[in-house]
């Protein structure tokens, strides 16, 4: 009888946990297949969908500059290999506040991650952008959910850069740099 009770409890725990997990997995499938979602957690799905779709538009040897406002760890190399990449990131305090409201620990981790990017010289500044642009063939702007706090694509790129629009996919835009 005790054995039956223990197995019953375990079955109950399993059923509750798995039904929640299956729900999340199914939601993930819908996020991958359906329209974009206004959710912080959607950012990494957006990266997979959008960068995966834009990747074939660049030749394999192209040098790519990724400009992003997403403070989450997005594996740009995974989606864009074998192309040499430069990634510049911009931290907007309003975005971190937005994440903090969902998960304080995640926001703290994101802030640390951005500090690490700063130390690696990957924080987006005018000077770094000026240095990086001449060394790139393509610029890929992954805006993530920056629009939710009023950040626009145009604010990230300098007005003087001669960019030719190649394609847009969700919150991501691919430009080719025009050489004179």
């Amino acid at each position, binding site marked *: 009888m005790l054995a039956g009770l*223990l197995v019953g409890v*375990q079955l109950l725990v399993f059923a509750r946990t798995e039904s929640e997990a299956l729900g999340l997995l199914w939601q993930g499938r819908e996020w991958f297949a359906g329209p974009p979602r206004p959710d912080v957690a959607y950012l990494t799905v957006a990266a997979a969908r959008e960068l995966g779709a834009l990747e074939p538009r660049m030749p394999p040897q192209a040098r790519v500059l990724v400009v992003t406002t997403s403070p989450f760890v997005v594996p740009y190399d*995974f989606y864009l290999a074998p192309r040499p990449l430069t990634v510049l990131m911009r931290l907007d305090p309003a975005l971190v506040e937005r994440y903090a409201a969902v998960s304080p620990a995640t926001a*703290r981790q994101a802030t640390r991650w951005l500090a690490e990017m700063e130390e690696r010289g*990957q924080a987006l500044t005018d000077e770094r952008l000026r240095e990086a642009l001449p060394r790139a063939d393509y610029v890929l702007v992954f805006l993530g959910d920056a629009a939710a706090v009023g950040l626009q694509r145009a604010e990230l790129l300098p007005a003087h850069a001669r960019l030719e629009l190649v394609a847009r996919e969700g919150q991501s835009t691919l430009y080719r740099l025009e050489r004179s």
Partner: protein
Amino acid sequence: MSPLSLDPRALAAVALVYATQLVAGWLVLGLLRPPPAGRRTWRDPRRWSRALLLGPALVALQMLALDALGLHFHLGLIVLPWWIPALLAWGARLPRQARAPSPIPPDPAPPLPAAARWLLGLVVLLFGGALVAGLWMPVHTGDAMNQFALNARVFETHGGLAPQALKSLAIPGHVEYPPLVSLNEALLFLAGGPARALVIKPFFALAFLAWMLLVVEACFALLPVGLATTLALVALLAPAAALSATEGYADLRLAATVLLLGLAGRALWLRPGRRRLLLYALCAVACALTKLEGVAVGLAAAVLPALLAARRRLPAGEAALVLLVMLALVLAWPVYAHVHALGRPALVGAEWHDAGIGLTRLPGVLSTMLLMMVDIGIIERHWGVFWLVSLALALWALRRPDRRTAVSAALLCGAAQFLIYATVLSLTPADLEWHVTTAAPRLLMHVAPWALLAAAVSRERTPLRAE
């Protein structure tokens, strides 16, 4: 192309890679654990679990050897060396059987109790569910990406380990991680094309299958049917394992390999022999190639053969040679990573804490981890009653002197691992709450095999002593 779609040609190539992993395991098992004459090995769940775990380890070793020889990773080059001997061995058996059927009737496998057969049915159901659910969502974030898939993409792109490329990733991953999962994923990438992040998902469901088969084996080999059924059900229905089967992390694979190491170690202790020693050593190497935590397990595993040799239960020269090769392979990746300076820099402004601070944080870490273990599903739903049942069975057995040795040995292994994990977590440079709540449930998975083994040997009357 959508990350959710896969063309039929790529699907066939991916299926070939998964089959190759199994064939590799099957071939080596044929040498290390030859089946009795005439027995249908494909019906033996113990061979499936071992092939599922050791096959990918062998493929990883093969790819490491190719890289060391300066050869590029190529699908044919990796797959054919396993299929050619397998097909030759199979082809050699067929005509012989057709010409002269053996006068000796096939040796039947020992019959499984009905309860075990029912549980194997449940295992198949759970595996099917995990496989399908895992395929709903590709790997795209978290450790599944940053510890394994990202490295695998580098291996695929460069056709080798390419340490310089690993170090120069625009967004650094955990490139120091042992390469078993990444190398097998790279092979799947070579086969699967653009749907990379999806084709690797069955790899984790297969680890779940291996874990479940080993759980059933351990319980029914060592416990009376009623108790075996209860313990096996409680272990099979522990949510942590099923969740891991769909995520793309390597913890469940490591847990299953640790369980296999424990079973192989028990067999070696009870009946020492060259083949058992080699199988045990291969398990230790597989642990070390799976995760960093597995390197520690692989190193600690050296104690058992050394002890057997010291007691003259194994020839000293033979044991020393196997141990030497085993330790070389266990340490191969950490040494390679060190030589090439592969490793993620410590987080900015937060180096690893010193021992003093670690000690003050240790009680909090321990209590959080213990809560995860003893909570029967009210707050934490990672394990349900698994720890309660397995530890109660093990601790209850300690009152009997004839059962004490085996149970204590398993409990000590688990306790040591648990304490090491808690200590490392208390020193973490990352946000403590974030690190403990995200890492501890998975780390406990590596400790779970020892609890299961301790419970499984709790009715074993033969004490662990020299024969």
